[in-house]
C-alpha cells in the first residue's frame, strides 16, 4: 500500500482543525470556518489521490499502531482501507465538504460560527474514524465520538430549551444502542478472543460455528448499535427531534453520514450475522421504513418531513442488509447521501429565504422567488421518489430486486408501498412549497440564496442525477461479491432491466404517488388529508404517539426507580440506620451519666455495689 501516511493525514486533519479552532481562533469566525473547510476538502482531495494511487483494493489493506495491550486484551489503533471504507471516505469528505462550504454562508450571521465549525470538524473526524477503523474497539470509540459530536451539534443553539432537550434525547437514545453494541463486542471478544475485523472474519470463515449458540444474540446485540445510530425502530425517536440543529447539521449528520454509520457497520461486520439475526434485521428495517413513511405523510415542518423520509430510507437500507444485500444497501446509502443532502440543503436555502419559517403551510409559490433552489429540490425529490434515470431509482430498484431474489414477498410488498408513500409525501411537500399561492408575507418576500450556498446544491444535484450509473454499485459489488464482473456505463444504465418486475412496479407506484400528491396539493391552501383519513391522520401526525408511550413507560419507570433509591438513601440508609446508631449512642451516653447524681451516698453505694459485682464475677461461680 503506497503513501500509507495519507489515510492518517486524512483522518487527523479535521481533528487538528478542531483543536486549532477551539484553542486559538475561537474569536475570529471567518478564519475558523476556512480552517475547517480546508481540512475536509483537503481530506477529499487526498482520498482521491490515495484511491488513484492504490486503486480500490490495496494489497495490504490495513495499517495499525498498537494502542492498548493488556494480557488477552489487544486493541490496535488501525485503519482498514478497502472499497467499502474508501467509498465512505469519499462520501464523508465529499458530501461533507459540500455541506461545509454551504454552511459557510448559512451560518454567516450566527455568533457561534467558529464553534459550529469546530464541532463540524470534530464530527468529520469521528465519522472518518468509524469508516476507517479496523477493529471493534476503535469503531466503538469513534461511534461514541460521533454520538457526542451530534449531541453538540444538535444542541448548538443550547439556549433554546427544545434544542437542549433534543440533544439530550439523541445522546441517550444512541447510548441505548451503544449498550447493546458494547455487550456484543464483549461477547464476540470473549468467544473469539480478538477485536480485529479481518481476524474475526477469518476465524468465522474457518469455523462458521465458532460463535456457537451465542451467534444470534451476539449478532443482534451488535445490531443494537446500528439501531441506535441508524435510528431504527424502536430507537428512532431521536432523529426527528434532532432537526433542532442547524440545517447543514441535519444534512450532514442526519441524512448523509452519521445515520448511515449503522448500515455501514452492518455491512462491515456482515460475517457475524447468521440467518436468524439477518431475518430480524430485515423485518425491523422494513417496519421502520413503513412506519416512518406513514408518519412523514402528515408532517408540516419542512425539515421534519425530510427527516422522516430519511428514517424510512434507512429502513430500506437495513432491510436490504437483512436480505443479504449489502451491495444494494450501500448503493442506496450512497445515492441517498447525495439526494438527501441535496434536499436538506435546498430546504435550508428555502428556510433562509423564508427567514427561518419552517412550516410548509406558510410557504407556497416559491419557484418564482428561488428558481435555482426549486430545480435542485426537484431533482432531489425525483431521485428520492425513484424516478428514472435519477440515482435514487437505481439504488431503490436494486433493493426491490433483492427482495424478490430472496423471495421475501412480504417485505417486497412493504418496500413497494413505502416507495409509493415516499413519492407521495415528497411531492406533497414539493407542491405545497413551490406551487400554489404564497400563504404568508414571508413567502411573498422570499429571495434566492447566495452563490456559496447554491453552488454546493448544484454539485450535489449533479450527483443525485447521475449517481446511479457511475460505477458506485461496481465498487460495492467488488467488495462483497467474490466473483463480481465490472459493468460498463451502458450496462449500468440498463442494469434494472435484469429485474423488470421490480423496476416496473417501482416506477409505477412512484408515478402513482406523484400523481396523487399533484391532485391533492396542486393548489391546496390547507391539508385536505385529515378530513379524508380522520383518526389515522392524527395518529400519523402524532408519530403514532410513540414518544408519549416512551414517556409513559421507559422514562417514568427509570424515574420511579431513581425516586425509590433516593428515598431509600435518604430515609433508610441515612435516616434510619445512621440516625439510629447516632441517636442510640447519644442516648446511652445521656442515660449513663444519670448515674452521676452528685450525691456522695449514691456514689458510696454504687462503689460497694461494684465491689459486690466484681466479687460475684470472680467467686460467684
Amino acid at each position, binding site marked *: 500500500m503506497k503513501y500509507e501516511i495519507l489515510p492518517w493525514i486524512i483522518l487527523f486533519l479535521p481533528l487538528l482543525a478542531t483543536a486549532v479552532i477551539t484553542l486559538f481562533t475561537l474569536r475570529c469566525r471567518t478564519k475558523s470556518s476556512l480552517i475547517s473547510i480546508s481540512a475536509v476538502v483537503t481530506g477529499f482531495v487526498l482520498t482521491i489521490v490515495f484511491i488513484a494511487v492504490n486503486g480500490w483494493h490495496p494489497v495490504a489493506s490495513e495499517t495499525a499502531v498498537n494502542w492498548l495491550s493488556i494480557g488477552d486484551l489487544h486493541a490496535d489503533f488501525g485503519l482498514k482501507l478497502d472499497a467499502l471504507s474508501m467509498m465512505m471516505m469519499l462520501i464523508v469528505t465529499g458530501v461533507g465538504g459540500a455541506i461545509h462550504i454551504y454552511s459557510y454562508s448559512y451560518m454567516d450571521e450566527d455568533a457561534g460560527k467558529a464553534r459550529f465549525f469546530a464541532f463540524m470538524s470534530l464530527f468529520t473526524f469521528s465519522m472518518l474514524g468509524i469508516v476507517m477503523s479496523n477493529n471493534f474497539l476503535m469503531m466503538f470509540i469513534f461511534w461514541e465520538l460521533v454520538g457526542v459530536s451530534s449531541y453538540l451539534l444538535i444542541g448548538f443553539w443550547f439556549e433554546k430549551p427544545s434544542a437542549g432537550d433534543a440533544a439530550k434525547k439523541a445522546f441517550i437514545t444512541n447510548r441505548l444502542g451503544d449498550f447493546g453494541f458494547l455487550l456484543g463486542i464483549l461477547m464476540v471478544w470473549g468467544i473469539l478472543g480478538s477485536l480485529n475485523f479481518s481476524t474475526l472474519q477469518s476465524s468465522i470463515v474457518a469455523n462458521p460455528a465458532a460463535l456457537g449458540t451465542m451467534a444470534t444474540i451476539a449478532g443482534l446485540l451488535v445490531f443494537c448499535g446500528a439501531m441506535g445510530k441508524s435510528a431504527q425502530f424502536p430507537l428512532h425517536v431521536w432523529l426527528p427531534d434532532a432537526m433542532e440543529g442547524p440545517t447543514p447539521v441535519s444534512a450532514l449528520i442526519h441524512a448523509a453520514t452519521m445515520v448511515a454509520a449503522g448500515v455501514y457497520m452492518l455491512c462491515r461486520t456482515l460475517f457475524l450475522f447468521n440467518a436468524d439475526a439477518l431475518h430480524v434485521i430485515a423485518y425491523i428495517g422494513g417496519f421502520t421504513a413503513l412506519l416512518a413513511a406513514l408518519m412523514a405523510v402528515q408532517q408540516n415542518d419542512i425539515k421534519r418531513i425530510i427527516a422522516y423520509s430519511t428514517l424510512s430510507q434507512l429502513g430500506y437500507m437495513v432491510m436490504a442488509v437483512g436480505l443479504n444485500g449489502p451491495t444494494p444497501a450501500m448503493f442506496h446509502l450512497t445515492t441517498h447521501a447525495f439526494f438527501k443532502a441535496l434536499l436538506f440543503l435546498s430546504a435550508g436555502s428555502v428556510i433562509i429565504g423564508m427567514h427561518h419559517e419552517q412550516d410548509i403551510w406558510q410557504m407556497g409559490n416559491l419557484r418564482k422567488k428561488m428558481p435555482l433552489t426549486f430545480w435542485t429540490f426537484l431533482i432531489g425529490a425525483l431521485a428520492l421518489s425513484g424516478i428514472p434515470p435519477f440515482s435514487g431509482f437505481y439504488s431503490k430498484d436494486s433493493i426491490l430486486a433483492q427482495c424478490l431474489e430472496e423471495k421475501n414477498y412480504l417485505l417486497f410488498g412493504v418496500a413497494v408501498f413505502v416507495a409509493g408513500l415516499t413519492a407521495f409525501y415528497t411531492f406533497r411537500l414539493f407542491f405545497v412549497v413551490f406551487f400554489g399561492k404564497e400563504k404568508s408575507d414571508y413567502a411573498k418576500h422570499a429571495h434566492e440564496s447566495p452563490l456559496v450556498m447554491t453552488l454546493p446544491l448544484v454539485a450535489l444535484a449533479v450527483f443525485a442525477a447521475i449517481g446511479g450509473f457511475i460505477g458506485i454499485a461496481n465498487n460495492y459489488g467488488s467488495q462483497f461479491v467474490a466473483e463480481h464482473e465490472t459493468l460498463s456505463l451502458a450496462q449500468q444504465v440498463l442494469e434494472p432491466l435484469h429485474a423488470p418486475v421490480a423496476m416496473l412496479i417501482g416506477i409505477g407506484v412512484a408515478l402513482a404517488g406523484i400523481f396523487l400528491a399533484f391532485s391533492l396539493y396542486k393548489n391546496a391552501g390547507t391539508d385536505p388529508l385529515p378530513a379524508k383519513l380522520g383518526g389515522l391522520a392524527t395518529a400519523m401526525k402524532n408519530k403514532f404517539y410513540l414518544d408519549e408511550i416512551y414517556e409513559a413507560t421507559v422514562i417514568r419507570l427509570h424515574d420511579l426507580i431513581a425516586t425509590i433509591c433516593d428515598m431509600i438513601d435518604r430515609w433508610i440508609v441515612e435516616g434510619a440506620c445512621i440516625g439510629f446508631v447516632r441517636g442510640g449512642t447519644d442516648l446511652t451516653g445521656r442515660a*449513663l*451519666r444519670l448515674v*452521676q447524681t452528685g450525691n456522695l451516698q449514691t*456514689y458510696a453505694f454504687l*462503689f460497694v455495689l461494684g*465491689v459486690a459485682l*466484681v466479687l460475684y*464475677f470472680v*467467686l460467684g461461680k
Partner: protein
Amino acid sequence: MNASLMTLEICVMALGTVLMLADFWLPDERKKFAGYAAVAALTGLLVISFSGCGACSLGGSAFNGMFVQDGLAIFFKRFFIVAAILVLFMAVEFSDRIAGGVSEYYSLIVFALSGMLFAASANDFTMLFVAIELITITFYILTSFQRGRLVSLEAGVKYLILGALSSSFMVFGIALVWGTTGKLNFNELAAVAAQFETSKIFLFGVLFILVGLGFKIAAFPFQIWAPDVYQGAPTPTTAFLAVGSKAAGFVLLLRVLFTAVPTVTAHWMNLLIVISAITILYGNLCALPQRNLKRLLGYSSIAHAGYLLLGVAALSASGQSALLYYLAGYLFTVIAAFTVICLVTRHLDNDDVSALAGLNQRSPLLASTMTLAMASLAGIPPLAGFFGKFLLLKAVLEQGAVNPGYYCLAFTALAGVVISFYYYFGVIRAIYWSKNVVDVSPIQLSGPIKVAVCICIAGMFWLGIFPTTALDMANEAAKVFGK
C-alpha cells in the same frame, strides 16, 4: 540495707520540707520563686536519675525487700518527676487563684511526688499501703485547696470519703491476704500464692486490694468519683491527679498482678477484659454530652484508664510495655490540655467548653497546643496517642489466638476511639469555629509556662515520631515481670 537507693525519695522529701518552711520567710510576691526553685531542684534530680551517677539509677532492694529499685521503678520515678515538674509550672501560674499558703501548695505537690516515688518501688503491702496513703492524703488537701470555692471543698470531701472507703477495703484486703498466706512481700507471696488459688478468703483479699487500686486508676466500677473530683479540684491538682495518681495506681496494679499473684491473675483474664471494655465505653459514652471541660477530661481519663487496662488485660510483656509507653504519651498530652485550661480559665469562674471560643485569636500557641492534645488523645498520627494506641491494640490482638474475647476487646476499644473522636473534635471546633466569641483579649503567657507548653508539645511529637528510645525504656521496664 542501703538507704542510698532512696536518694531520690529523700531529696524530694527534703525539698518538700524546705518549701514548706520557706513559707515563713518568703514575702508573698516572691512565692513564685519557691515554685521555680522546686522546678529547678526536681529537674536536677531528673538529670541525676538519667545520668546514672548516684545510687538512684542502679538496681537493688532496701528494707529487706520492701523497697526495690528496678527498671520499672526507675521508669516510673522519671515519669513522676517529669509530671511534677510540669504540674509545678502550672501551679505557679495558678498561684494567684489560691487564697493563702502558696508554697504549701508546692510542697504538698512535692510530698505527693515522694509518695509516688515510693509507690514506684513498693514491693511489699506495707510499703504499698503507706505510699498510697501518702499520695491520697496529700491529694485530699490539694483537691480542696481553694477553700474559697465550694466546689473545691465538695470535691475534696467526695474524694476524702470515697478514698477512705477504698483504702479501708484495701486494708481489709491486705489483712486477709496476710492472714491466709502470712506474707507481705510480693516476691515471697508469689512463691506461695499458687497453693492458695482455691482459698476464697485469699482471693477475697486480693480482690479487695484491687478495689483500692481500681479506685486510684478510676476503672469501672470504681470510676464514679472521677468526674466530680476532676471538675472541682484546682486545675493543677486535677492534672496531677489525672497523671501522677493514676500512674501510681497502675504501677502498683502491675506489681500486685504480675509480681505478687501472677498465677491468680492468669485466671482473671476475663475479668480484666470485661473491666477494661466497660471502662472504655463508660468513659467515652458519658463524655459525649459533656460541656464542662474539666469534667469532660474527667470522663476521658476514665476512658483512658480503660485503654491502659488493655495493656494489663493482654497479660503479656508487650502489653505491659505498651501500657508504659501509652502512659508516657498520656503524661504530656493531658498536662498540656490542663495547662491550657488553667491559663484560659484564669479570669473565668466556669470552665465550660465555650471558654475556649476564639482561643486561636487570643493565643495561637495555646490553641494549637489544645488541638494537638485533643488530637493525641483521639489517637491521630504523628502524635504520641496514635502510636500508644497502636501498641496497645497490637498487644491485645496478639492474644487473640489465646482467647477470642480479646478480639471483642479490640473492637470495643475501636468503638470507644470512634466515639471519642466526636467530643475531642467538639473541643477543637469550639476553639476554631464557635459562633459567639465574647472575649478576644490576647492571653499573656509568662516565659516559664511557654517552656512547659513547648515541652509538652515536644513530648507528644517525640513519642509519636521517634518512639524508639521511649519504647526501649518501656520494654526495659516491662522486663521486670519477665523473670
